[in-house]
């Protein structure tokens, strides 16, 4: 009984803490004031970073709310199922259905309120941890701290009570329908686990996941990636709802040995479908979210890396500051160079102001350096012109996949980019700007007013600048301080070392190959950091949910264990059977979670295929291995500890006591 209430309380407390912390951090970031003493460009950059932090915190808040709702409702449903006999007993002595329902809902309000009371201070600790994590990963400025808001008290108590009530609602309805006669039976007719609610929820969320998988490729680079990353949420709910069908079946398939212990574990798995499903549910969500999101993220990142490698046509990359283009082109041996200066900007469309990144480019050189003016027929010719750089990865990847390259050529828009002069602007590979009409554009310190959008380059999955600007549009003083990146192609026969030495006087020179490698590493690292920030605490919460379910399940098993021991099993054998059973449930949960994660991977593959022409699937094996190991270890240890403590009293004392 105590384990049941403590378990429900813990799920509410941590859920409220996580939601409160994410919400306070989001509000703090959204209302962050620009620090004084920053230049105009720095101010714009700061606001750009804040926008990124806010959208990430929005994700974190969404994830926290989803997890809290899921874990709380599944924990509540399980505790109510475990107390079925108590409710039947109440019905037997004259409790009406309404009274049972009311009692459970009152309990939910109490647990929700109590959970919130504990969750508010816990949330402050969680917030400190979350803020530290985000500072450490550089998503927020140093010194960023979540700020307390008095109104959060109302929100947290509201969240706690609302989530607890919502979680108890369905369970209370079921409990109220329990027949008084069930109090007289030990096993009861509670065996029906696949209720209509479960079927409905399972099928609806499966449909939702399927819809996301189908629509993702149409969503473009940004939308498709977001949809792919969201597939695990409905897929996990569907898998969890339908798990009572699958978990016992998988349990039968799992090699649990042929001895008596294996037989007992298999029988328990089949018999206690409700308990198995309750342990598996948070596990499915944990595995689906962590592996699904990480795999989809990694696939999309890798697709971006491959795409960049394929599109970048350069031998050297020079990193410098200011308008260094003419100086670089003037170096003997340089065939062409696309020098791109990045400048923060603010774009107003339909009265909506948003920060954007702009690149000041030379249209012709840009098109050359980024495969935009590469007609399919020019492929062989480029192989000679590449000269000493013929072995560069960019050239190589193009020549091995002419079909993909041809696909790019079709979408290239060099003619459009040629129109990029005067006051005209173009939509960059980062997109998010309307590709026709005009926009209001402001640069740091300078309102350019309305400018026409005359062209757009194809959006890339790796993103990039939202806007491409001609050099004439941006005043010298802004260009002088702008970070510049030049993609340099050497003349055939030019000495790379000599050119490199000359360029070294202008900026830092890197082999295009090395530059791409470093860029890929940086992208992967950013992706990993985002995953940790978004998933880290949520995953921990889900893991605690798993432990919670095992503890709640074991609390009711003392008699069952005692009966097994009276039947001739030693305490060690009972423990081994419990461990085997929990490992089988864990394995089944991992399998179902992976199935839900596979949905995300399919969506990612379809999206990358639609955007880049090649389906990219990256499986983060280290993470998958780690998640499986942690899940097996934690569930195994928990079930050993709980069954060890449940078998401590002499079995006969437990069998004799009937209340």
């Amino acid at each position: 009984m105590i384990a049941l209430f403590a378990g429900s309380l813990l799920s509410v407390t941590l859920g409220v803490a996580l939601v409160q912390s994410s919400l306070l951090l989001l509000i703090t970031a959204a209302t962050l004031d620009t620090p004084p003493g920053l230049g105009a460009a720095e101010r714009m950059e700061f606001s750009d970073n804040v926008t990124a932090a806010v959208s990430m915190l929005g994700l974190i808040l969404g994830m926290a709310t989803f997890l809290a709702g899921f874990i709380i409702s599944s924990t509540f449903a399980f505790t109510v199922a475990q107390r079925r006999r108590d409710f039947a007993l109440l019905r037997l002595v004259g409790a009406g259905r309404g009274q049972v329902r009311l009692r459970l809902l009152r309990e939910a309000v109490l647990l929700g309120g109590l959970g919130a009371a504990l969750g508010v201070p816990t949330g402050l600790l969680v917030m400190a941890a979350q803020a530290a994590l985000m500072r450490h990963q550089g998503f927020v400025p140093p010194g960023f701290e979540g700020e307390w808001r008095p109104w959060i008290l109302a929100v947290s108590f509201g969240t706690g009570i609302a989530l607890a009530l919502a979680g108890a609602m369905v369970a209370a309805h079921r409990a109220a329908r329990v027949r008084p006669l069930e109090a007289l039976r030990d096993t009861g007719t509670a065996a029906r686990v696949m209720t209509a609610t479960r079927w409905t929820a399972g099928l609806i969320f499966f449909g939702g996941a399927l819809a996301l998988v189908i629509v993702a490729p149409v969503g473009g680079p940004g939308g498709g990636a977001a949809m792919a990353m969201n597939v695990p949420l409905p897929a996990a709910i569907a898998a969890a709802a339908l798990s009572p069908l699958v978990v016992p079946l998988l349990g039968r398939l799992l090699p649990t040995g042929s001895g008596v212990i294996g037989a007992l574990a298999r029988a328990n798995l089949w018999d206690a479908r409700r308990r198995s499903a309750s342990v598996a549910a948070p596990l499915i969500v944990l595995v689906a979210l962590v592996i699904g999101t990480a795999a989809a993220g990694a696939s999309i990142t890798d697709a971006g890396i491959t795409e960049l490698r394929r599109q970048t046509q350069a031998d050297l990359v020079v990193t410098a500051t200011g308008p260094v283009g003419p100086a670089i082109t003037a170096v003997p041996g340089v065939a062409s160079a696309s020098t791109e200066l990045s400048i923060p900007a603010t774009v107003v469309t339909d009265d909506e102001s948003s920060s954007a990144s702009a690149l000041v480019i030379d249209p012709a050189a840009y098109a050359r350096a980024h495969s935009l003016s590469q007609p399919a027929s020019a492929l062989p010719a480029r192989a000679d012109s590449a000269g000493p750089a013929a072995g560069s990865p960019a050239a190589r990847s193009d020549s091995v996949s002419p079909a993909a390259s041809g696909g790019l050529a079709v979408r290239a828009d060099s003619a459009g980019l040629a129109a990029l002069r005067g006051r005209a602007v173009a939509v960059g590979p980062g997109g998010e700007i309307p590709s026709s009409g005009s926009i209001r554009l402001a640069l740091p310190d300078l309102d350019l007013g309305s400018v026409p959008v005359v062209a757009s380059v194809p959006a890339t999955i790796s993103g990039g600048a939202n806007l491409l600007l001609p050099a004439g549009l941006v005043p010298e003083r802004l260009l002088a301080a702008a970070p510049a990146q030049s993609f340099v192609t050497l003349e055939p026969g030019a000495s790379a070392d000599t050119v490199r030495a000359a360029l070294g006087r202008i900026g830092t020179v890197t082999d295009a190959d090395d530059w791409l490698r470093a860029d890929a590493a940086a992208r992967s690292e950013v992706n990993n950091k985002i995953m940790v920030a978004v998933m880290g605490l949520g995953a921990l919460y889900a893991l605690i949910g798993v432990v919670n379910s095992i503890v709640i399940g074991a609390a009711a098993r003392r008699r069952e264990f005692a009966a097994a021991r009276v039947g001739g099993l030693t305490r060690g054998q009972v423990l081994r059977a419990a461990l085997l059973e929990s490992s089988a449930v864990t394995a089944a949960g991992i399998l179902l979670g992976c199935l839900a994660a596979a949905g995300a991977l399919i969506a990612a593959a379809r999206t990358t295929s639609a955007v880049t022409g090649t389906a990219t699937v990256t499986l983060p094996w280290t993470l998958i291995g780690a998640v499986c190991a942690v899940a097996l270890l934690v569930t195994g240890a928990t079930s050993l500890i709980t069954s060890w403590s449940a078998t401590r009293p002499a079995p006969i004392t437990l069998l004799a006591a009937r209340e």
Partner: protein
Amino acid sequence: MTRADAAVTLRAISRVFGRGNAAVRAVDNVTLEFPRRAWTAVMGPSGSGKSTLLHCAAGLENVDSGQVLLGDTDLTAARDRELTALRRTRIGFVFQSFNLIGSMTAAQNVALPLRLAGQRPSTALVRDTLAAVGLADRARHRPRALSGGQQQRVAIARAMVTAPDVLFADEPTGALDSSAAAVVLDLLRVMASGGQSIVMVTHDPLAAARADAVVFLRDGRVVDRLAGADAREIANRLASLT
């Protein structure tokens, strides 16, 4: 026997479990009256349908055909809400596994049916009810701190606190040692002599011998009825059924 003398009337009731070849007629067309202000025992070999008969008579189990009357109230036509109200006021239950609520004290368990009915039972009423079963000094104990016999007496107090028309008892001494069983049977005897209608299922001839009459069941049908028989007679009759 006139209608007014029957605490519970069973009219041609049947209850079938399972379907097709696996169907078991647990109660097969039983017509029976349990008299008012008397203690009737129901006996029979295992699987004779005696527990199902009790559950049907108490409105815990639906009948497939026939009619169950509690006094003049038709239980077969009653909805869940009415049955709930009856359990609070006119029906009391005692079972082999005492079925007390483990987290509540003896006094709280006893007060529960009245509280569920929306009343505030006086401490005096609860104390007197517990005193009637000889547990006045155990009011604050939780079930796990009581012996089996004491727990069963709390269960009887809980069933009696609403002054029910009929007390249904399913193997009330089945889980008790002989001395605890004797205390419980003495208690039931006192209640029956005081005018309480009791219907009790048992397989113990010693328990059945304390009742006013014994009804014998086999394969879901009433096969015999004895009144004022002693334990040896009842045991012989029961043995002849198997």
